[in-house]
C-alpha cells in the first residue's frame, strides 16, 4: 500500500505508461531452423486513472500481447525484450518475479475471453473470486465475500447471495463472464485488462455483459484496457481507441474521432467492413430441399432440441438460420444431413424423401449435401496436403485419379482465389481465411446442390470474413449451389441471405424472404435479436437496453 500512496502523491504521471514496448517470440517453422519474430514493434501508450482504452485489431495484431504486458506476462513463451512498462510510477519489468507476483491480481487484474475455460472446474466460484484478494492480503475472507456478493449484485447476476456456492459448470457462459469481471474487481485493482470479454457470447447475452461491465467500470472508477476486434463493441465502453495491425500502431485517438473521422485507410476499412450489397432472390416455385415438421432430440429422445421445424430451400438460393447458441441451429443441420435422425417429420430432396439415417443414404445423396464447419483447422486432417484434402471427394465420388484429379484440384484452387502452389502445402501453413477457403473448395469438389455452412465466418476476423462471404456469393452465381447458412451474426445474414429462419429454443419463430423478416412489426424475439447487434454509434448501448421488450435466454 505504501508504494501505491507514494505513486498517488506524484500526481503528474499517468496510471500506465508503456514506452517503446518490443515483444518477441521464437517460431519453429517445419523443416527450418528456429526463427526470432517480433510480435510488437515499439508500441507506446498511456492510460490515465479511471479511463478506458480500447485496443482493436485483427488476430495477430498484438492486442492481447500488449494487454498482458501490463502485468509483465508473456503468453506461450513470448518475451518482452525492450521498452518500459511503468505502472503507478515504477517500471514493473525491473521488479523481478516477486514484484510481478505482487502486482498481478492486486494492482492489475485480467478478464479472459472464455471465462468458461478460465475458471477452475474443481473449485467453487466464490473461492476463486476471492482468491487473489486473500492472497494479497487485501481483506479478510468475510469482507472479501461480502464485497464479492455486492459485485455480483452490481453486475446483475441472478441470486447474488448464493451464486458463489456454485461450480463453474453450473453457471451459463454469460453469467460466468460477469463472475469473472467480479473476480477482477474484487481485489480493487487500479487497472483491469479485458481480453475480448464478450466475443464468445451471443449478441443477446453480449449486450447484458457489456452493460454490466460498463456500469462496474463507472462505479468503481477502475481504469481498463479493453481488447476486442469489434469496433462497435469497443465504441460503447472506451474513452479512447488504439488501432493496431501486425504489432504496430495504426491510429490512436478519441472514440468519436476513430469511428467518425478515421484518419488512416486501415481504420476506415475496419469501420466500414460489413457492407455487402446482396440482392434478394425471390423464392422459386418448387423447393429442392424441404424440411417438413421435423422434431429431433438428444439423450434417447428426452431432450427435444428441434420442435416441428418446416423450412424450404430453393435452387441456387441461401436460407440463413439465425438464433443464439442452444437454439437448435446446428441440430437442424445434423437432422438434414442424417447425422441425427429426426424422431418425426421428413426431409424431401428433389421431390423424394431422403432416408432419415445417414447410413441408409446412397452415395449420390451424400454427394448432393456437403458441409463447411466453423473451425476450419480441425475440419481438415493436419497430415494431408491441401491437394489430397480437396482431391479426396473427387476420388470418392467421381473416381478421378492422377493427372485428371490434379487438374480439377488446380481448377478448384483457382475458384477459391488461391494459386496452384497451395496444393502441396499443409493446413498448418495456411492462415485462418485460407483454411476456410480450402474447406469450401473441398465441399465444392463434390459438385453438391446444397452446402450447409455452420458458422463458417464466426472464427474469422471481420475483413477476412468479408472476403469469404463474397467468395461464397460468387460461387453461388457460378455453380448455382444453394446454402443453408447457419449463423448468430445478423450482419452476415443481411449480407448473404435470400430467406431467413429465426430460431429460438428449438422452434422457428419467424420465417420468410429476407425483406419480410427484417421489416417490422417484429415478434418479441426477433426484435431482441435485431436490437442487440452492436452499432457503431456512441450511446447505442444505453438506448438498446432501454428499448428492450424481453430478456435473452442467457445461454
Amino acid at each position: 500500500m505504501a508504494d501505491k500512496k507514494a505513486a498517488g502523491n506524484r500526481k503528474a504521471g499517468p496510471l500506465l505508461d508503456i514506452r517503446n514496448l518490443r515483444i518477441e517470440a521464437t517460431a519453429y517453422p517445419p523443416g527450418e531452423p528456429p526463427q526470432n519474430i517480433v510480435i510488437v514493434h515499439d508500441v507506446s501508450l498511456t492510460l490515465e486513472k479511471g479511463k478506458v482504452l480500447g485496443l482493436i485489431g485483427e488476430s495477430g495484431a498484438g492486442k492481447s500481447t500488449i494487454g498482458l504486458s501490463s502485468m509483465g506476462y508473456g503468453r506461450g513463451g513470448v518475451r518482452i525484450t525492450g521498452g518500459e512498462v511503468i505502472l503507478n510510477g515504477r517500471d514493473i519489468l525491473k521488479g523481478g518475479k516477486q514484484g510481478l507476483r505482487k502486482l498481478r491480481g492486486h494492482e492489475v487484474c485480467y478478464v479472459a475471453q472464455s471465462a468458461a475455460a478460465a475458471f477452475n472446474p474443481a473449485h467453487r466460484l466464490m473461492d476463486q473470486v476471492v482468491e487473489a484478494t486473500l492472497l494479497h492480503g487485501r481483506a479478510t475472507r468475510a469482507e472479501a465475500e461480502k464485497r464479492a456478493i455486492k459485485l455480483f449484485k452490481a453486475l446483475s447476476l441472478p441470486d447474488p447471495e448464493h451464486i458463489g456456492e456454485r461450480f463453474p459448470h453450473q453457471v451459463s457462459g454469460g453469467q460466468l463472464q460477469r463472475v469473472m469481471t467480479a473476480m477482477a474487481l474484487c481485489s480493487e485493482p487500479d487497472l483491469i485488462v479485458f481480453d475480448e470479454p464478450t466475443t464468445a457470447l451471443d449478441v443477446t447475452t453480449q449486450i447484458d455483459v457489456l452493460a454490466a461491465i460498463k456500469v462496474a467500470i463507472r462505479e468503481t472508477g477502475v481504469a481498463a484496457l479493453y481488447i476486442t476486434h469489434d469496433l462497435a463493441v469497443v465504441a460503447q465502453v472506451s474513452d479512447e481507441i488504439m488501432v493496431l495491425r501486425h504489432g504496430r500502431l495504426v491510429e490512436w485517438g478519441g472514440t468519436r474521432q476513430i469511428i467518425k473521422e478515421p484518419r488512416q485507410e486501415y481504420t476506415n476499412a475496419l469501420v466500414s467492413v460489413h457492407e455487402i450489397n446482396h440482392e434478394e432472390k425471390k423464392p422459386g416455385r418448387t423447393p429442392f430441399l424441404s424440411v417438413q415438421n421435423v422434431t429431433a432430440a438428444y439423450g434417447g429422445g428426452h431432450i427435444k432440441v428441434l420442435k416441428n421445424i418446416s423450412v424450404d430451400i430453393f435452387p441456387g438460393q441461401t436460407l440463413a438460420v439465425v438464433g443464439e447458441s442452444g437454439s437448435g441451429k446446428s441440430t437442424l443441420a445434423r437432422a438434414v444431413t442424417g447425422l441425427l435422425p429426426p424422431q418425426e417429420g421428413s426431409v424431401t430432396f428433389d421431390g423424394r424423401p431422403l432416408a432419415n439415417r445417414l447410413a441408409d443414404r446412397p452415395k449420390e445423396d451424400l454427394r448432393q449435401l456437403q458441409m463447411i464447419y466453423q473451425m476450419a483447422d480441425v475440419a481438415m486432417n493436419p497430415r494431408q496436403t491441401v491437394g489430397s484434402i480437396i482431391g479426396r471427394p473427387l476420388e470418392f465420388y467421381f473416381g478421378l485419379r492422377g493427372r485428371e484429379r490434379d487438374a480439377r484440384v488446380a481448377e478448384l484452387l483457382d475458384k477459391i482465389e488461391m494459386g496452384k502452389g497451395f496444393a502441396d502445402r499443409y493446413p498448418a501453413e495456411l492462415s485462418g481465411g485460407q483454411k476456410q477457403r480450402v474447406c469450401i473448395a473441398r465441399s465444392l469438389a463434390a459438385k453438391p446442390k446444397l452446402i450447409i455452412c455452420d458458422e463458417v465466418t464466426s472464427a474469422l476476423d471481420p475483413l477476412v470474413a468479408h472476403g469469404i462471404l463474397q467468395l461464397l456469393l460468387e460461387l453461388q452465381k457460378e455453380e448455382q449451389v444453394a446454402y443453408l447458412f447457419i449463423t448468430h451474426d445478423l450482419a452476415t445474414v443481411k449480407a448473404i441471405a435470400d430467406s431467413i429462419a429465426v430460431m429460438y429454443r428449438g422452434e422457428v419463430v419467424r420465417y420468410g424472404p429476407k425483406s419480410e423478416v427484417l421489416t417490422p412489426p417484429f415478434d418479441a424475439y426477433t426484435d431482441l435479436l435485431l436490437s442487440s447487434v452492436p452499432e457503431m454509434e456512441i450511446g447505442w448501448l444505453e438506448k438498446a437496453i432501454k428499448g428492450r421488450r424481453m430478456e435473452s435466454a442467457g445461454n
Partner: protein
Amino acid sequence: MSSPILKLVAQRIALGILLLLAVSALIFAGTQVLPGDVAQSILGQAATPAALANLRAELGLNDPAYIRYFRWLGGVVTGDLGTALSSGQDIATSIGSRLWNTLFLAFCAALVSVPLAILLGLLAVRYRNGWVDKLISGLALASTSFPEFFIGYLLVYFFAVKWQIFPGISTVYEGMPFLERLQAIALPATALTLVVLAQMMRMTRAAILNVMQSAYVETAELKGLSAFSIIRKHALPNAVAPIINVVMLNLAYLVVGVVVVEVIFVYPGMGQYLVDHVAKRDVPVVQAVGLIFAAVYITLNIVADVASIIANPRLRHPK
C-alpha cells in the same frame, strides 16, 4: 450425494462382481484343462484303480464340470476354499495369516511410495525441464528398469550383509512386536517401493503437465499465485483421476505382484504360498490364491473408478 453418482457407482460395483464371476469361471476352467488327476495326485502312482474310482466318487469328480464349478463357487462364497492336497490342511485357515502378511507388506510399501511418488511428480512439474526434473525422472526410470529380484539382492547385499542394518530374511511370526515386524519388512518394502515409484511419479507428472496448459492455470498465474501453489491448488485437483488410476494399478501390483520379492526375502505371504503350491501341483490352492488375487485386482480398480467419478465436480454437483 446425488442420484447420478450413486447410479454410476452401483453400475461399477455390479460390473466388478460380474467380472469376478467370469474370472472365477476362467480359473476353474484353466485348472480343469491342466493334465493330471486330483485322485491320482492324492493317492500316488501305486494306487489301485478301484481305490482311485472310490476316491473320485467321494470327491465328486465324476460329476459334470459345471456342477463341480458351482459346488466350488458355493464353497468360496461361504468361506470354504477347500483342502490343500499336499498337506490336507484347510486352505482358508492357512491363507488367513499369509494374506494378512502380504497386505501388511503392501500397505507399508504403499504408505511410503504413493505420497513420495506424488510429491516427486509435483516437484518434477515445478522444476520441469530443469536438472531437478531430469534427476527425478532419470532415477525413477532407472529403479523401474532394474528387475525386482536384482534390486532385492542389491538391498540384501548392502543393508543385510555389508552394513547389517536390516535382516536379509524377513521372518515374521504371530505376536511379533510391531517395531520388530517393521524392521523385518524394511527391505522387501523398499524393493517394492522402488519398483512401483517410477510409474506413479511419471503419471503424476504427465497428468499435471497436461492440466498446466489450461486457461485456468493462466488465470491463477495472473492472480499472482506462486508456481507451487498453482500446481497444488489448481492443477492437482484436476489431474486426480488419471493419478488415482495409476496408483490403484500399482497398489494391485503391490498385492498381486509380490511373488518374486516374497520369495527372495522368504517372507511368509501369499506369493510364497502360491509358488510353493504351484511346484507341488496343488490345484485347489492355486485356484483359491488366483481367485483372491483377482478379487484384489478388481476391487482396487473399482475403487479407482469410483474415486475418479467422485473427483469429477460435474458428476458430484450436477446442474
